[in-house]
């Protein structure tokens, strides 16, 4: 059953009483930026959901805030920020923590949970297709609206649940992905196959994500410049659910597609933007995604003695 848009159910001051998560995340990001460590020109493709073969460089720490906002049909508008801390443990292993929350208009602002993911590069050298294994543990409640992936029968009705109801439903989930990715003539092509299982019960759920992208220039300029084409990369991604092990397919699933754009500020953060459009009635109309990421180069060197530098 789809709840009606509820603008009067909860007084507005209940939203303002809580500390906005976005403010907290911004504060953490600012502190990290104050470390005076130069940022690197990120080499990651501009995807929001799709993973490519690119891992974090060993020793680097990427701090990112991903924001998603939408006004789904028959539901209140919401904003969902996700803080992402990605660390390159080795050249073949990247580990990442996500902290998630959301603020829904006429409802409340809540913390929705965390994820811990690990990505492992399988083959030692580059091939036509490069596989990466992905393993994740999620402790996320039912009010989560980050849509970091779509699996099973995820649909617009999940976005229509009130926060008080959703947060009581806590999922402990393991998720695996096979990431296949290729680089050819400046283009990146990536495909992800997703399998997810709630350890509290329920069937295995499946999903997919595919993306293609390219920097706007393949040759770097000999002078430092802000708006050079080499600092931009553009692409598109498509993702959605593939139901469960019992009813594998596209029936009663949601799907999204949209263009993506990244802007790498030289010696500064990377900005990303993507409007993503729901492709069927089970999907929200438009998801507006933004991302700000900052890479602290050789973060681990900050903890080494000066004499060894």
């Amino acid at each position, binding site marked *: 059953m789809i709840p009606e848009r509820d603008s009067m159910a909860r007084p507005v001051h209940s939203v303002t009483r809580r500390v906005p998560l976005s403010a907290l995340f911004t504060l953490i990001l600012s502190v990290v930026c104050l470390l005076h460590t130069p940022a*690197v020109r990120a080499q990651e493709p501009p995807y929001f959901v799709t993973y490519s073969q690119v891992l974090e460089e060993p020793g680097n720490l990427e701090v990112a805030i991903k924001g998603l906002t939408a006004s789904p049909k028959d539901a209140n508008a919401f904003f969902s920020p996700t803080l992402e801390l990605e660390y390159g*443990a080795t050249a073949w292993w990247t580990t990442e923590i996500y902290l998630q929350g959301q603020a829904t208009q006429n409802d409340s602002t809540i913390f929705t949970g965390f994820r811990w993911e690990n990505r492992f590069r399988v083959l*030692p050298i580059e091939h036509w297709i490069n596989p990466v294994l992905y393993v994740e543990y999620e402790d996320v409640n039912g009010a989560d609206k980050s849509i970091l992936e779509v699996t099973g029968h995820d649909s617009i009705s999940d976005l229509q649940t009130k926060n008080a109801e959703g947060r009581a439903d806590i999922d402990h989930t393991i998720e695996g992905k096979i990431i296949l990715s290729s680089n050819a003539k*400046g283009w990146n092509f990536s495909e992800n196959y997703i399998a997810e299982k709630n350890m509290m019960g329920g069937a295995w759920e499946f999903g997919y994500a595919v993306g293609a992208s390219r920097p706007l220039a393949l040759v770097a300029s000999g002078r430092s410049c802000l708006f050079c084409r080499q600092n931009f990369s553009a692409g598109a991604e498509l993702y959605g659910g593939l139901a469960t092990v019992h009813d594998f397919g596209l029936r009663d699933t949601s799907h999204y597609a949209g263009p993506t754009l990244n802007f790498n500020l030289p010696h500064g953060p990377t900005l990303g933007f993507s409007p993503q459009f729901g492709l069927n009635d089970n999907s929200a109309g438009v998801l507006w995604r933004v991302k700000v990421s900052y890479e602290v180069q050789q973060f681990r060197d900050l903890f080494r003695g000066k004499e060894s530098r």
Partner: protein
Amino acid sequence: MKKNSISVFILLIASALLMASDGSWLRRVPEGDRKRTNPYAGQAEAAAAGKILFMDNCAKCHGDDARGRHNRPSLRSERIEHATDGELAWILRNGNTWKGMPSWSSLPEPERWQIIAYLRSLPPDSATATTATRQGDERP
């Protein structure tokens, strides 16, 4: 027992991180790659672009002067001096993941060649040492 296993695992990871490059990757470069030539060789503009790319992507590990930092190898060593452009292009594309060097395949290939053009524009340490020795000899 469990604690021991964890310690061994951590030690293995740490030693993998700390191991300096020994140049064994050079033996793995296919002959076809070894013979590739840099389309930007000797071009000052490409070297200038390569310098910007190097500072953005490589300097934090290999140092602003490319002489290496924290056990990470110098790129002005004799080994790099004698490596072909094709061999350097191969290591940039594939990395040496077990020794800590990531793959830079997502940098467009022309940009990787520009980095190599920049590295070639740097005087190798052997040349610097020779110059220093000569200057020392000239001293009264």
